[in-house]
């Protein structure tokens, strides 16, 4: 339905598509109790990366031959900031050990950019049982164009300390029953919403959130509430079919068509 949605920040032609490149960790900063940020010098082919797109990352040593196979698959990382055309910021749990100079092999960009309403006034972001990291890249440009953003942390997402996020973002910690103050308003006023859940049991969790939303808002039109997936992607290019999602109509792949899918079109558990 391209009627009401447009790519972000303005229509961009994706050149070249996904590539395999190398990156190097330049700086490491702790941002809160549980997380650190890595500044990555990357290939310029990644400069066109947009919110919603991700990288499939594998640590390598200088000697590409000396690879071991643990972990076996690449990790899915969503950048949180773009500092320059060759400098991305990634957020990783603090328990992961990184040192400046660490080399990474990167496949990317993975996935489709998020599509935002052209005149987006109120954006609702929900992170449920997972840190909000994949939602952060959209914050600065949307704030700059005047969008009001509310980020609701539900369940274990509340453990993520948001003090380092832009102060214009309204942060709400949901109650244990997943409700929050002024819920009817937050939900009702949102022009668009993205619901982020961790890998595993996504369909159950999206269904829970949809029930919460429908209880507060009579009509949920198509292309309003999106589920944001972050399953591990074995191939990232549409080959392995392991990321197939139960969408009404056609089978869709998270790696090619995701990460965000209209929750009214997903067959929820």
């Amino acid at each position: 339905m391209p009627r009401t949605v447009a790519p972000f920040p303005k229509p961009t032609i994706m050149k070249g598509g996904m590539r395999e490149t190398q990156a190097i960790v330049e700086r490491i900063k702790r941002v809160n109790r549980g997380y650190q940020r890595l500044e990555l010098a990357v290939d310029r082919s990644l400069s066109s990366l947009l919110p919603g797109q991700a990288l499939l990352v594998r640590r390598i040593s200088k000697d590409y031959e000396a690879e071991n196979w643990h972990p076996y698959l690449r990790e899915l990382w969503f950048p949180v900031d773009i500092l320059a055309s060759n400098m991305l910021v990634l957020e990783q749990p603090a328990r992961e050990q990184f040192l400046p100079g660490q080399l990474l092999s990167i496949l990317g960009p993975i996935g489709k950019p998020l599509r935002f309403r052209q005149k987006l006034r109120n954006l609702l972001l929900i992170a449920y049982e997972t840190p909000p990291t994949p939602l952060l890249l959209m914050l600065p440009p949307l704030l700059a164009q005047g969008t009001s953003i509310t980020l609701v942390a539900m369940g274990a997402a509340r453990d993520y300390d948001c003090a380092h996020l832009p102060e214009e973002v309204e942060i709400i910690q949901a109650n244990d029953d997943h409700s929050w103050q002024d819920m009817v308003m937050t939900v009702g006023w949102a022009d668009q919403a993205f619901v982020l859940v961790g890998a595993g049991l996504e369909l159950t969790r999206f269904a829970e959130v949809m029930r919460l939303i429908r209880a507060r808002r009579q009509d949920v039109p198509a292309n309003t509430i999106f589920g944001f997936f972050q399953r591990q992607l074995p191939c990232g290019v549409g080959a392995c079919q392991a990321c197939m999602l139960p969408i009404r109509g056609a089978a869709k792949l998270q790696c090619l068509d995701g990460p965000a899918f209209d929750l009214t079109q997903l067959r929820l558990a």
Partner: protein
Amino acid sequence: MAIEITRPGKTSLIVATPVMPAAGSLGFADEYRNLIDYANLGAVVTNPATIEPWQPAAGARIVPLDAGLLVHTGLPNPGLRALLRQYRRAWRKLPIPVVLHLLGTTPDQAKRAVELLDTVDEVAAVELGLADEIDVAEATALVRAAATIEKPLLVRLPFYECAELALPVADAGADALVMTAAPRGTARDAQGGRLVSGRIYGPLIKPLVLRILGRLRRELPAELPIIGCGGIHSPTDARDYIEAGAAAVQVDTATWAQPKMLERIARDLGGWIATRHADALLDEWHPDMRRGDSQQRRGKG
């Protein structure tokens, strides 16, 4: 170089490099076009296809293991006719032969599928996948039905039944045997917490399949090529298969983790075999070879 990897006959499959993806790893056509130069491979083997459409399996799909993983997808595909409509054009553009992997369901379906495929110029050969725990009678009936094809017929054998099936399947008309499909196993799904079954991939599969292949190579007719498949993660792994008697190799999940590895293996093996055929000194062209290699190989001719 031209290497015949199916039994000599009225048609046979000839590749420039004896390296290709295993069915299920590289997609249906050119999904890896941004990452892999297909011209460097010997052939493309498609994801598994069936006459009727198959839906994805319910339940967990990917369980990361220590140096490996469990995969369970249900082999979703829109059915053979839809696949032909969707991918024919892409196949035509590929610079290498396309081998269509056909899942063995019933002899009747197999026969209908190969009749259709004989009319499709873009498909150079068919690889028939036999299900796990298939018995000899079922397997030979399926292969006999599929062997009505004009094109070369490769047959992929299941892991545990490989030794038992190899000779009967060869007699039933297979032009080459692929050894083997990934073994099934059970692991705990990290997300759901339950024990789930699926195919097991990883480097440790290689020694298991390599032994099976080496033994069967000595028992099977010499003119029947065997294609090695299982746990190949490096050029050395591929060379070991060739050394054990494989005519070619298929690389499976290593490609997902390191897309360039498939091409590296293809280039390494291509060069190695070319040199070996010319009987040149191996050490001259590839510095990382060990002394033992060349000696042994020369001894074996």
